[in-house]
């Protein structure tokens, strides 16, 4: 785009196509294109700067630091629809936190899906973090309770709770999440420090409905954006941050334990721009 010689309708059409194909969505795309026209921008380098700032301003005031209460057990809950990368994110984040000097412990909170407990246990072994589990079919809230007790006994300061994938349209599954939250608050006397929704960058506009619905059930504190190593650009994240003011805290860029890093809005926007 930025190799065009002038800003004309052809360029703006091309730009609209690129932005929509990046899952930015029609509303934000139209808003940006209209602002470009209103600004009467003449050079393509000016255009790139303008676009960069347009996107960067969406992240103004967003704090992507983790909420970690010192001297206490912090509970992080990982939630989201099926197959987005929650279990992998728990494993990678346990590894990340361990390297940061924290003492993480994992709760195998997906007691529903076939071999989910096996999967998270293997991740625990891979990154050297204890996994507290019960049998498949157990009440996830009871696993979380046990995990909190284990965290106290083993002097761990961050408990990462893996949960089963769930469609946001199933109210009984949202109730299950709320129950997990209540058990945390009841057992520790305070709420989970982080409720992280794990969002797959290849998914489209439905993600907005997902965030909206999950947010009505539990108080979301952050987004983890996964699978950015594919060809999807994850443009829907701009709409999410703008609409719900939930910070993106981490991105996952592959399947290895270290393919995981804190979210950097500038870096994300750089690779997002056409």
């Amino acid at each position, binding site marked *: 785009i930025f190799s065009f010689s002038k800003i004309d309708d052809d360029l703006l059409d091309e730009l609209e196509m690129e932005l929509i194909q990046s899952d930015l969505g029609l509303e934000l795309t139209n808003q940006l294109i209209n602002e470009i026209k209103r600004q009467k921008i003449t050079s393509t380098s000016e255009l790139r700067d303008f676009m960069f700032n347009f996107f960067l301003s969406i992240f103004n005031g967003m704090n992507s630091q983790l909420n970690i209460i010192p001297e206490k057990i912090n509970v992080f809950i990982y939630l989201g629809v099926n*197959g987005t990368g929650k279990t992998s994110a728990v494993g990678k984040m346990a590894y990340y936190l361990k390297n940061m000097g924290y003492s993480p412990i994992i709760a195998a909170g997906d007691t529903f899906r076939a071999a989910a407990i096996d999967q998270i246990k293997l991740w625990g072994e891979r990154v050297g973090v204890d996994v507290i589990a019960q049998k498949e079919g157990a009440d996830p809230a009871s696993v979380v309770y046990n995990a909190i007790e284990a965290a106290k006994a083993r002097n761990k300061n961050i408990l990462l709770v893996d949960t089963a994938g769930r469609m*946001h349209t199933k109210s009984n599954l949202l109730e299950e999440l709320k129950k997990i939250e209540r058990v945390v608050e009841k057992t520790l006397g305070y709420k989970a420090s982080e409720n992280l929704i794990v969002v797959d960058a*290849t998914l489209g*506009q439905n993600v907005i409905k997902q965030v909206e619905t999950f947010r009505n059930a539990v108080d979301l504190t952050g987004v983890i954006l996964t699978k950015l190593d*594919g060809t999807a650009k994850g443009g829907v994240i701009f709409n999410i941050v703008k609409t719900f003011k939930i910070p993106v805290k981490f991105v996952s860029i592959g399947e290895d334990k270290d393919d995981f890093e804190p979210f950097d809005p500038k870096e994300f926007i750089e690779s997002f721009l056409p």
Partner: protein
Amino acid sequence: NLTGRLQDIFRRLRGKGRLSEKDIEEALREIRQALLEADAHYKVVKELLNNVKAKALQEEVFRSVTPAEQIIKILYYELINILGGDRSNINLGVRKPGIIFLVGLQGSGKTTTAAKLAYRLLQEQRRVVLVGADTFRPAAGKQLKVLGEKIKVPVYLEGKTPQEIIEGAIKFSQEKLADVMIVDTTGRLHIDDEMMKELEDLSKRFEPSEILLVVDGMTGQDAVNIAEKFNEILPITGVILTKLDGDARGGAALSIKAVTGKPIKFIGVGEKIEDLEYFYPDRFASRILG
């Protein structure tokens, strides 16, 4: 809904006097918005709207007493045209066992769908073997094994590489007099050349009668990239679109079919083993339009 919005548009436009050709443009913009919101691909939508416009002008929709309904009818016809004709079946080929590969991106639902497909074929009186050829994902074999046990289908997992596992599975299936073996594979990116080559080699070596691309029904614009690449490298015979029990409109279906021409054979509508349905183009067209 869309019909309602189009009715409002034409009502307002008629209020200004007789409708003209260019009034169609506003209706087309509304349709475009609906389709993009449904995650249909930008280029697919553009071409579809050109066809709708040409038909609308040809039929002189703007002269009609019910222009909204008429445009919707044209749009429906065009959608169903793209989404495909008759219900497709599973082709088991002539050799025994017939071989089905399930391929696709990470987390799209291959392992779960393998078990669902096995269950469906069981109900059609086939002898089925499930093959766990995913040697990468932690506990992938166990996942398939647990699902297989639920439906009493043998699950073959022996071997260090996918090729070894499939070779052993063929012998096993022949001993069991199985009609079909369903091969679950590792999730992979279409841009991972090495992993795509692995699939290409497996496909050439074992010549499955079906290679089904499993795609998450909530996929956005990237659906075109994924489908194009897989279809370019492998003889894809069909597509299964999963996780359509949520409220995703599923525009990816339109994009994938338009770009590959390969039939969407099934849709996944839940996590249970029975949650696999045949794909019906007309039902799906309504879903996409919201």
